[in-house]
């Protein structure tokens, strides 16, 4: 045995106490926010506070214990951050429900949060090694496609608010695109790990970019076709943008060729421009985006800017410090409990609250990206990177939409918007990240015998 192996090995710490303390902090903030709403609205601490608090605390404790047992080396920051965002979403939905938002239901959301945490725990327990997902590459691909087209199928497909993006199964209404996002991320990761050399190396150089071979363009074109198909058939610009962005990002990371990004962007912009010209509802979005406060668009019954402006009015009224929880009128923002929950939060928590919220999202994404960087195998790198990116990308699309940074497309604000499918899917996403984080941070097995000059390289 060499003297070197006796030296202490620099190991990632488990930080269990810090982890638990941060979780308690997150739950504490949520409970205080909950009490705040009750005090502002009724002048007393809400009656259900202990039940809600204990419920959320208990659920999170279960998640923590599962994590400590089955993924002890996982990043200790991810779970507290997600708990905080999920809890704040719950408080906002509770607050909007109390103010008479008819479609908002905090109890339902709490139920789905519980289901989400159960899924999180279940995924961690069942999936001991995420690399087994690599074997399911094409299964995941097929499942993803099926989920994407499911809303178009007769009987189970379901149209709502002019977009056909829901399915009805056993009395539950699901938004399958949220699950498709996971399946496709797994498929892309598996597919690209297998094909990346071909995609990266074959081709010729034209002017200043490396063009891939035409036959290698196949998957890109297929994905593009599916995205445009969703856009046309389901009128769901958001999901289309989400899927296509995910694919472009993953192919770029896998092949390290900027040309893919350019090709992807050109294809998407071209597709969107054509769609904008052909389909009035896409064109409307652009008009509204460019000139939202114009009364012509504001007063338009269909595809008008009243929703968007409603959110902006709320945020403007909130200003820097916000009106305070329970003291604004977020319920007068259309869809304040789902698509516009970010604007509703902005009204009551102000710029201060939104900056903090965006930072929390940013931190979750960066912890995911760190996991990708630290991962030991290319599949994990791609999957962790893809899942982190899709989270950031989704926040960007919906938050950018409601704040008029980009045209508004309907998407779920991860962990905040009311809706079961999204909560389940995103908790599974977090479980996958945690699983990969655990394996990335787990100390490598110590060599039993001196292997001499033999060295293992990892890419």
């Amino acid at each position: 045995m060499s003297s070197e192996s006796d030296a202490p090995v620099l190991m990632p710490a488990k930080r269990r106490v810090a982890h638990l303390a941060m979780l308690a902090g997150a739950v504490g903030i949520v409970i205080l926010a909950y009490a705040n709403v009750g005090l502002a609205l009724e002048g007393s601490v809400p009656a259900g506070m202990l039940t809600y608090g204990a419920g959320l605390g208990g659920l999170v404790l279960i998640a923590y214990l599962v994590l400590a047992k089955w993924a002890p080396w996982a990043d200790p920051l991810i779970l507290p951050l997600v708990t905080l965002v999920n809890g704040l979403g719950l408080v906002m939905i509770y607050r909007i429900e109390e103010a008479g938002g008819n479609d908002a239901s905090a109890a339902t959301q709490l139920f789905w949060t519980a289901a989400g945490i159960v899924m999180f725990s279940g995924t961690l327990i069942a999936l001991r090694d995420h690399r087994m997902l690599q074997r399911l590459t094409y299964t995941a691909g097929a499942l993803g496609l099926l989920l994407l087209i499911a809303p178009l199928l007769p009987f189970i497909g379901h149209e709502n608010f002019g977009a056909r993006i829901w399915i009805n199964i056993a009395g539950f209404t699901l938004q399958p695109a949220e699950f498709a996002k996971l399946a496709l991320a797994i498929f892309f990761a598996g597919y690209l790990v297998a094909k990346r050399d071909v995609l990266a190396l074959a081709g010729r150089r034209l002017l200043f970019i490396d063009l891939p071979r035409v036959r290698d363009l196949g998957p890109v074109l297929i994905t593009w076709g599916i995205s445009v198909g969703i856009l046309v058939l389901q009128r769901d610009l958001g999901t289309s943008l989400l899927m296509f962005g995910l694919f472009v990002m993953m192919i770029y990371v896998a092949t390290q060729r900027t040309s893919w990004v350019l090709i992807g962007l050109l294809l998407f912009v071209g597709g969107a421009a054509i769609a904008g010209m052909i389909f009035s509802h896409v064109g409307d979005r652009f008009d509204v985006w460019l000139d939202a406060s114009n009364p012509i668009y504001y007063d338009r019954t269909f595809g008008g800017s009243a929703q968007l402006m409603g959110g902006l009015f709320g945020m403007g009224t909130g200003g820097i410090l916000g009106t305070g929880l329970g003291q604004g009128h977020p319920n007068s923002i259309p869809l304040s409990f789902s698509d516009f929950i970010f604007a509703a939060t902005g009204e009551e928590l102000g710029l201060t609250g939104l900056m903090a919220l965006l930072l929390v999202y940013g931190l979750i994404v960066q912890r995911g990206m760190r996991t990708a960087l630290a991962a030991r195998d290319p599949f994990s790198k791609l999957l962790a990177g893809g899942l982190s990116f899709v989270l950031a990308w989704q926040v960007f699309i919906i938050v950018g939409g409601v704040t008029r940074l980009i045209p508004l497309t309907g998407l779920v604000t991860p962990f905040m918007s009311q809706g079961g499918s999204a909560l389940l899917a995103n908790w599974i996403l977090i479980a996958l990240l945690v699983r990969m984080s655990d394996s990335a941070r787990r100390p490598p097995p110590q060599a039993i015998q001196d292997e001499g000059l033999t060295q293992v390289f990892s890419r």
Partner: protein
Amino acid sequence: MNGTLKRAAVACMLMFALLMLNVNYIQVIQAEDLRTDSRNNRNFYARYDVERGRITAGDKVLAESVRNKGSQSHLFAFTRRYPEAETYAHVTGFFAPENETEIERAHNTLLNGTHPDLLIRRGIDLLNSQQSKGANVDLTIMPKAQEAAYKALAQSGKRGAVVAMNPKTGAILALVSLPSYDPNKLSEPNKENVNKASKVYEKDKGSPLLNRAINQSYPPGSTFKVVTAAAFLEKDDSRGAQTQVEAPTRLALPGTNISLPNSGNSACGSGQVSLVYALEVSCNTPFGKIGLDLGYDAMNEQMQKFGAGEELEIPMKVSGSSIGKKEDDPAAIAMTSIGQRSTTMTPLQMAMVAAGIANNGVVMKPYLVNEIADSEGTEIEKADPDELSTAVTEDTARKLREMMVSVVNNGTARLAQIPGVQVGGKTGTAETSGGRAPHAWFISFAGASVDEPEVAVSVIVESGSAGTEASGGQTAAPIAKAVMSAVLGR
């Protein structure tokens, strides 16, 4: 692969940076515009967020904010209620989602607590973490008089107005305009309902939303003869009630071939009568002649001295009253002097004429607000009676009072007599254009002593609303009597 992953991570951070910049732009730079945008409903909700102060008249609550219960209570914390509804509608006004009127408007910032004078109160409330309330406004209105006026005028569906004042201070004791409306209907926190209700009121031919007492002017008819008499007496100290004036059956008007008759084409005495007789019987020709002799400028000056042409705020803005522009036609002033032609007066202005005469010639500035106090009762504003102008000398005022008492005792206004009280008055039956039924007017004062009347009243009953035979003496005088009795407690 780490190189591209790092770049992707940077791209994610850039996206968040863009979102943060944009949120800063919206909530800091654009915030003010978004907040004040007329389409932002929050301005509308904010109206109902504060507990507005009460409007009271003595012990009677005329308007108050009541905390809402039920499903609407999160949008609208308070609703404005008017327990007395129609009776005080033209005093309190209403508090609609997008506007307000009368006292609610004139003292809006005090009632909602944003007035600078309430800064200290707001500071104390903030320290005690209490929700600030608006200031309470107490009015000079005397509920008994207001109710008597409303009841007397409302009988048999008359349209018109009543104003009663304390001549010594200018405090308005009653202010009624009919038809009236229910301010509760216009103050609901529901734009749709309010718009519907206000459409109904706007379409109503009786214009219930119009405050006739201060915002509508009418030809004053014979009540204006008091002003003409005042100008006549002011011209020469030696003139008095018994001064003989020319009273032809018809007064030839210079520069025209028409002549001015008396009411009903009757004669007025024997062509030469005393001033008091002319006033008692309300002959037209003597006053037409006086007007012709005095000329436009003297008449206009006299009317200005009674307060016409002043921009009055009681605190609501009062419409102007005047005898019209000077005309080239020299005969016009004869018509003006008997309250016709382009002479138009608000009921409040005519009450000020009566009050000025009652108060030894001094017209007090009319006011409606007695006291404003913050939610804890600390006084912010207290009415301070103020002279507006001196209309006539004490001597003239005494002569006019005596003549007006004579009108009630011996003349056209016998129905205004109150046993044991000195009542002076002047009736008016003003012709309206197009041969329609006349407006019935009455101005009066009353008190235990003729030298110190305690109340001055002006009543108008609009054309047609009390039958075609309406006249000042028959229709308007009894209403004034009811109000004066209520004020004097008789």
